């Protein structure tokens, strides 16, 4: 177990450190800062200086970084310069919104995409395969923004209905929450289902051409056993890796969908942080995204061991 854990933990810590340094430097190399935004069309030197010192922007950049890092190590991501709220709380709130969308999308996309991919792979070259491939093509090439907009405008035109645009958590108001998440989840799931289906189909087709499958058929095994017990089992590893990638992608924030449906998720938190040059928020939220990516990768690695006994060695 240690053999499995230690190198991964080490690389995770290094990844987090390097990425936070990059974020820190990048944010500060973007022209303009919070002081400029707060003062707008004024630029009184005394006021500028006072605000720069209020936010600690007058100190050397490496000192700012080290102080921030010292805080982070103690589990404190600082406070938003605009809101004054702890960044951890803001990230947690936004993450709960994004997590709900991501998990629902993942479940829906898996439920649609995997069976479609399996069927298309088994029936390679059939009309059904062609239809599923057409679906994949549309899903992969239609921009998420466009799909979301079409669903929004379509629901309004056909049913005179639109989601409420003020967020309610499931614990606050479940029916409102469902009404809010349904369209964004559908828009994201269409893309992801198509990606799944495309991926699973390719894997199935490759797998079914292998010698052991032919041998299994020759041995007289039933198709169900061959497809599901042998072929599908063997594509589980790449499939889990793929799921991990999709999850990271959605969890990192889907700015476009969040803007379209007015969702207060991680993507918008980061975007508004960047626009307002709220450094603590951007640094904290991006560090969190890196952390999530590490956790997901870690889980995927651990799952390999469960799925494939050879990996446990």
């Amino acid at each position, binding site marked *: 177990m240690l053999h499995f854990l230690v190198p991964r933990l080490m690389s995770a810590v290094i990844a987090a450190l390097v990425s936070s340094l990059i974020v820190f430097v990048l944010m500060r190399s*973007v*022209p*303009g*800062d919070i*002081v*400029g*935004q*707060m*003062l*707008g*069309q*004024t*630029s*009184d030197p*005394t*006021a*500028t200086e*006072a*605000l720069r010192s*209020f936010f600690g922007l007058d100190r050397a950049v490496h000192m700012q970084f080290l102080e921030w890092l010292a805080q982070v190590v103690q589990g404190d991501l600082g*406070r*938003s310069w*605009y*809101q*004054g*709220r702890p960044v951890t709380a*803001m990230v947690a709130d*936004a993450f709960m919104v994004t997590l709900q969308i991501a998990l629902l999308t993942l479940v829906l996309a898996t439920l649609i995409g995997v069976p479609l991919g399996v069927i298309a792979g088994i029936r390679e070259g059939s009309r059904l395969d062609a239809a599923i491939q057409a679906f994949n093509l549309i899903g992969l090439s239609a921009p998420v923004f466009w799909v979301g*907009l079409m669903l*929004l*405008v379509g629901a*309004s035109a056909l049913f*005179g*209905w*639109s*989601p*409420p*645009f*003020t*967020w309610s958590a499931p614990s606050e108001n479940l029916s409102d929450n469902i009404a809010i998440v349904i369209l964004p989840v559908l828009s994201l799931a269409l893309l992801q289902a198509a990606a799944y289906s495309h991926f699973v189909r390719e894997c199935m087709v490759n797998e079914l051409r292998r010698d052991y499958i032919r041998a299994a058929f020759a041995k007289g095994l039933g198709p169900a056993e061959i497809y599901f017990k042998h072929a599908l089992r063997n594509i589980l590893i790449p499939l889990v890796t793929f799921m991990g990638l999709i999850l990271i992608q959605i969890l990192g924030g889907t700015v476009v969908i*969040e*803007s*379209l*449906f*007015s969702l*207060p*998720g991680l993507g*918008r*938190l980061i975007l*508004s942080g960047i*626009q*307002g*040059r709220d450094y603590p928020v951007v640094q904290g939220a991006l560090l969190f995204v890196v952390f999530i990516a590490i956790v997901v990768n870690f889980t995927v690695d651990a799952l390999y061991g469960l799925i494939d006994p050879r990996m446990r060695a």
Partner: protein
Amino acid sequence: MKMIRWTTRLAALAFAGSLAAAASAQGSDALIYGKSDPNARSGGKLTIGSLTEPPAMDPYHQAADARIRVTVLAYQGLFYEGANGQPIPLLAESYTMAPDGLSYTFKLRKGVKFHTGQTMTSADVKYSYDYLRDPKNGSPGAGDLSTIASIEAPDADTVVFTLSTRNGLLPITLTHRYGGVIPKDYFSTPDARTRLNQTSVGTGPFKLKQFKPNSVLVFEKFQDYWQKGLPHLDEITFAFMPNSATMVVAARNGRIDTGIFTRPQDAEQLAKVAGIRLVRTPSMNQKSIDLGSEHPLLKDERVRQAIALAVDKEEVMKASLAGYGQVLGTMVPGMQERWGLPLSEVPNQKVDLDRARKLLAEAGHPNGFEIDLTTIITYDWMDAAAVTISEQLKRIGIRVNIKKVELGVWIRNFQSKQMGFTFNDWPSSPDPSLLFYRHFRAAPQGADFRNWKHDAASALLDRGREESDYAKRRAIYNEFQKIMASSVPTIMLFSSDLLTVERERVRNHQQHPTGWYFGLIKTWAPN
């Protein structure tokens, strides 16, 4: 059913016009915040869609117009901005100016309560304006109050402002843009600035109930508000929608009751929906092209004049706003009548390509030149305007490269006076001195963002600020506008109308030309 209503605001204008510009003014309570609706009933909630979101709710330290729009509901100054840019007494009941113009005495309104429950006294007023004017406190409002030498509170209902030089526009700077009267010593309490995102501490008719960034902002009725019977609404919710397509759908399906749209095609589309009306209000904003004299080509006055003579403002406005705006001379429409140089007298307004070419040749560019024109991302109107202007300038041989930058980057260039050739979008500044002084007065008194360094113009701006007699001020500012239009540090293009979409249940919502939500104070909405 298509309903487009022009807000005439005759009542408000007539009222504001009747106020004497100088010496003393007496507020007529009934007309504060516009006319009342005799049928108005109390109760009801309103949801407003908003494309812009305030970064924070602190009126003292946030310059953003999106913040001013909403905090006018919770915070009040000694005056507020009338519909044509006239200061109207609010927390001050009346005021007098000393004969030498160097001190103003304000009588305060009695029985005004803060959202914290305390009663407002002159000590609070003194504290608030002292805090605001000290540049060390980092408020964008400090610059406007730099002529104040001291503030005294001789008794509970009186404050006296003493000035270092005459300043005729003092009353209009004691309004809503920045600050507002808050309880004494508020900013000495821990986390005072950011706590304003959870609780408001002003005297306004609504108090802050909830602010969830990227989601909603909720105000509730302040029960102890000093204007009896106001406000009518129990609650106002602002739903932040960063995408205008979303706001169209939300308005169509009744998820929002009202909202200001920036794209005319969205508003027109909604005006066709039954039960929805489009209200068009002339605004005080100003879309312009700035010509910074630090630019090697633009430092030559003849080049700037040539550009002005090649720009057809009407055509640009139609391309940008589909006609929902007003072409400007040198003054915003809301203030044209009171302060503007008559359009027929403004130089360099008519397209004259021959003269433009001649000026370019004289400046040493007979074959024109190439220049970058900066536009700001998310300012939709600039895209169409940039394309139109580049076509227009092509006719005199100027080849334009359109360069898009993000707002934060643009602000940095602006504040460091490296604007070059750029579009600009100014929010409301309801007085000619506020409009011009900081922008065009040579440093160090002004910021002179365009590096214009024009001595005669600066002298006029100084005189305009010291003068308090309306007729004299008007003459000074007309002279200034003539110089500005002839030397062309900026080309004021047009102002966009405020396009407010309302459902029928929204009653007596008088949109203020600043776009700030004063009008909601007398709005009512039957459930």
